[in-house]
C-alpha cells in the first residue's frame, strides 16, 4: 500500500520512495527512507493534505505526494 491510504492514528513503516524526481528527492531529504516509522496525525479540514509524524517532527504531504511512498502497516 502507499502512504496516502494510511488513515489518522495508523502507524506504518516506509518500504520505498517510488519516484526519482523532485518529490522523490524532497521526500528522501525529509527522512522518508526505508525502515522509518511514520504515523498519520490528521487530515486538513478538506481531507487533503495530510499531516504525518516521523522521527519526532511533523510533515504535511498532499495525497498525490504521499502516493509516492510505499509503506506497510504496523
Amino acid at each position, binding site marked *: 500500500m502507499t502512504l496516502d491510504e494510511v488513515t489518522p492514528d495508523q502507524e506504518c513503516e516506509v518500504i520505498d520512495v517510488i519516484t*526519482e524526481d523532485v518529490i522523490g528527492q524532497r521526500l528522501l531529504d525529509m527522512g522518508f527512507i526505508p525502515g522509518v516509522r511514520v504515523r498519520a496525525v490528521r487530515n*486538513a479540514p*478538506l481531507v*487533503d493534505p495530510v499531516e504525518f509524524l516521523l522521527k519526532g517532527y511533523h510533515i*504535511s504531504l498532499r495525497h498525490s505526494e504521499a502516493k509516492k511512498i510505499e509503506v506497510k502497516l504496523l
Partner: protein
Amino acid sequence: MSSKPDKIVVALVGQPNSGKSTIFNMLTGARQHIANYPGVTVEKKSGFFHQDGICIEPVDLPGTYSLTSYTEEERIARDFLLTESPSVVVDVMDASNLERSLYLLFQVAEMGIPIVVNLNMMDVAEKRGYKINTERLSHQLGVSVISTVGNKGRGKDKLKQAILESSKKVDAVPFHISYGDALEPILNSLEKRLSEDSGLSQRYPLRWLAVKLMENDEEAQRAVRRYSNENDQILAFVEEKTADFIQKHKKSPKKVIAVSRHSNAQKIIETSLLREKEFTRTLTDKIDSAVCNRFSGPVILAATIYTMYNLAIVQGYKITTYTWPLLAWSRDIVALLLPPEGFVFDPFIRSISLWVVDGTIAVLNYIPIFLILFALIAILEDTGYMARMAFILDRIFRHFGLHGQSVLPMIIGGLYVGGCAVPGVMACRAMKDEKAKMATIMIMPLMNCLAKIPFYVLMIGIFFAAYRGIAMFFIATITLIIALSIAKILNLTVLKKKLSAPFVMEMPPYHMPTVRGVLSRCLERTWLFVKKIITIVIAVSAVVYALLYLPGLSEERKIQFITQGNQAQQNFFNKIGRDNPYAGLITGDNLNKFSAYWNDYRKAKMGAGSQEAMEAIDQKFRTKDPEFFKIVKRGKYETKGRLIRDKQAKDVYNAYKELDKTRNRLRREQNEEIIIASFMGRTGRFIEPLTQWAGFNWRINIALISAFAAKENSVATLGGIYQSSSGEQKTLEERIKEKEGGWTPLHALAIMLFMAMYPPCIPTLMMIHLETASTKWMLFATFYPIVLGIIISILVFTGGNLLGLSGFQAMIAFYILALILLISMGLIRRETEFT
C-alpha cells in the same frame, strides 16, 4: 571574490526553524546589512563582529533541508559556499532535531570548508528530555561543537571563539561519510578522474562534485560541461556507472546516497544522544487539534485573516492620516524651493519636480502599512501558523494553480472590497512555490484595491441605484471569480515552465516569537523596500509625466491662454479700481503670493472640523499676513476687539473670487488640452474605434488612461473632463448623465468591469518588479489586465447590445458566464511537473 586578509567571511547554514536568524542576530548585533542576492528575491544578510581584533563577517544563507539544486534557496546557499569560499561554515542545528540536521551537515562537510557545529535551542532540547554528549559528537565529527541558546544569548562567546579558531585550520582534513561498499569504489574512481581535469579540480571540491554527479544533479552536470575539457567523457562515465549500479542493485545511486546520509546520522546519534523520555508535542498537538480541526480551523483562520486585514489595511490607513501631513510638509518645502507658480502655466521644472515628488510621497505614504504588515507576517512565520494556513487552504487554491499561502496576499490586496496591492504583492514573499507565487502576484491587479472603490460607488450611484446592494456584491465577487480563473489560465500558459515546489512542508512546533526578531525583520524589509523603490519611482513617474504632458501646447495656443489670463487680471484690477488701498498690495509678484495665500487658506478651512479649529486657522493666517487676511475674510475682521466691515477689502474679495474661477478654468482647460494632445491622449483617440465596442468614447479613454498615474484620481479625472461650466452647482453624477446622455447602464457596467481589471498603480508595479526581479513580468502585469479588461468590456457591451439585455440583465448573465468559466477551470487537471 576573495576576502581581504584582515576579514574572515563566515557562512551560516542550517535547516528552516533551527533558529539560524537568532544566531545571526546574536553574533552581529545591530551591525547588519541586508540586500537581495543578484537576480533573485531571496534576502542576503551579512554583518560583522570583532574577535581578538579580527573582523569577522557572518553571512546568513537561506535555511534549507538539503543542498540539491531543486530550489532557489538551496542553489543560493550552495553557490555561496562554492564560489565565495568562506573561511568557516557554521552549521546551526536545532538540538532537538539532531538526526535530520546531520543530514545537511554531511553535505556541507563534503564541500571541504572548515566547519563549526552549533547546537542551538539547547534549552528546548533539554526540556524535551534530550541529553547530547557534545564532546563525543565533536570527536565523531572531527569539528568543534558549540551549544547555544540563541534567543537568550547563551554560548555567544564560545561560538565566536570557535569560529576564529576554525578559520585558522586551513589544512584541516574535512570528514566525510561513507556511502557504502557498493558506491564508494565508484565515487573514488570518479573523484580520481575529476582530479585529472584542471578546469574542475581548481574550482570544485572533488568529493562533493563526484557525489553530486552520482546524484544526477543538474547543476553539477552543467559545471562539468562548462569547465571541463573532456566533459563528454566524464558525463558518459557517470552515466555508465549509474546504469551499472541500477542494474546491479535495483536502486538509483541517488537513493542510496540519501539513505546512507540518514543511516550515518542515526549511527552518530545512537552514541551521542540520550533520550531520557519519549517526547510528544503535547502543547503543539493540543493547539493543532483546534487550529487544524474541520470546524474550528476555518473559523480561527478567518479570524486571523480578518485581524491581519484590519490591523494592516484599516488601522494602517488610519495611521497614514497622521503621517501624511509630514510628507505633505516635505512636498511644500520642495515647492518653496522651486520657481513659483505662474498664473496659467507653471514652469516646466516646477511641474515635473512636483509630479515626481507626488509619486514618491504616494509610495512613502504606505510605510505605516508596510511596518504593520511585515511585523504581522513575521509573527505568523515565527509562530508556525503560516504553515497551518497553507495546510488548511491548500485544497481549494491548488485547483487554480495557487497555493494555500496565496490567500493572505489576496485578502490584503482586496479580495472582497478595499485592500492594497502593494502590501499584497509583498506578502507573497513568504511563498516557496515559485509557480504559485508568480500566479498570486499576477492576479493581484485584479483585486479590489481601495482606490477603485470611489469609482464603483460613483458608477453604481448613477446607473444601478435601484440595485445598489446587488451591484456592489457583483463587483466585489466577480473580481475573485475572474482572478481565480486567470490564475489557472496563466498556470496553463505563461507560467507553465515555472518551477513548482512539492507541497512537502514541515509543520514546526508552535513557538513564541521574540519582539526583537519580529521588529528587526519588519524594519529590515521596510528599509530594503524603501531604498529600492525610491529610485525606480522617480524614473517611472518622470516617464509617465512625459507621456501625459508632452509635447505640450503649440506656441499659438499658449499665447492665447496667456492673453486670456492677462485679460482676466486686467479685468480684476479694473474692477477693484486704482483707489482701492489693497490694489498696491496685490500687484506684480504679490498677486502670486496672494494666490498662494488664498489657496492655502481655503484648503485649511476645508480641512477644519470644528469651530475652534476654524479660529485657530484664522489666527495663524492673521499672523502670516494681516493685510491679506482682511481680504480673505471678505472685509469682516476684528481689530482691537472691534468688528470692522471693510468695504474695500470685500470688493477685492469678490473680484478675486471671479479671477480665481477664471484662472482655475484656464488651468484646467490647458491641462486637458495638453493631455489630449499628449502621447497618451492621442492613444485614447486612436483606440476609439476599438473601444467603442466596449462603449468607451475617447473622453472615457483618456480618463482611463490618465488614471494610470494614480487610480485614486479616476473620479477626479472624470470630474475634470466632465467639468461644470461656470460654477453650476451640479454633482459629478448629474454632469456625467447630462454630457453622456446616451449612456445606459450597459455602458456603466462595461466601464466598471474595465476598472475592476485595471492595471496596477506605479507603486504596485515597482513592488512586482522587486518581488519577481524581472522587468518582463512587471510589463506583463501592466498589459495583460488592459487586454483582459477590453475583452471583457467588449463582451459585455457588444454582447449585451446584440442580445438586447439591460445593464442589470447583462450583469447577471456575465456573472453566470464567469462562474461557468471558474468551475471549468477548476476541473482542468494537470499533472504537476516539477522539472
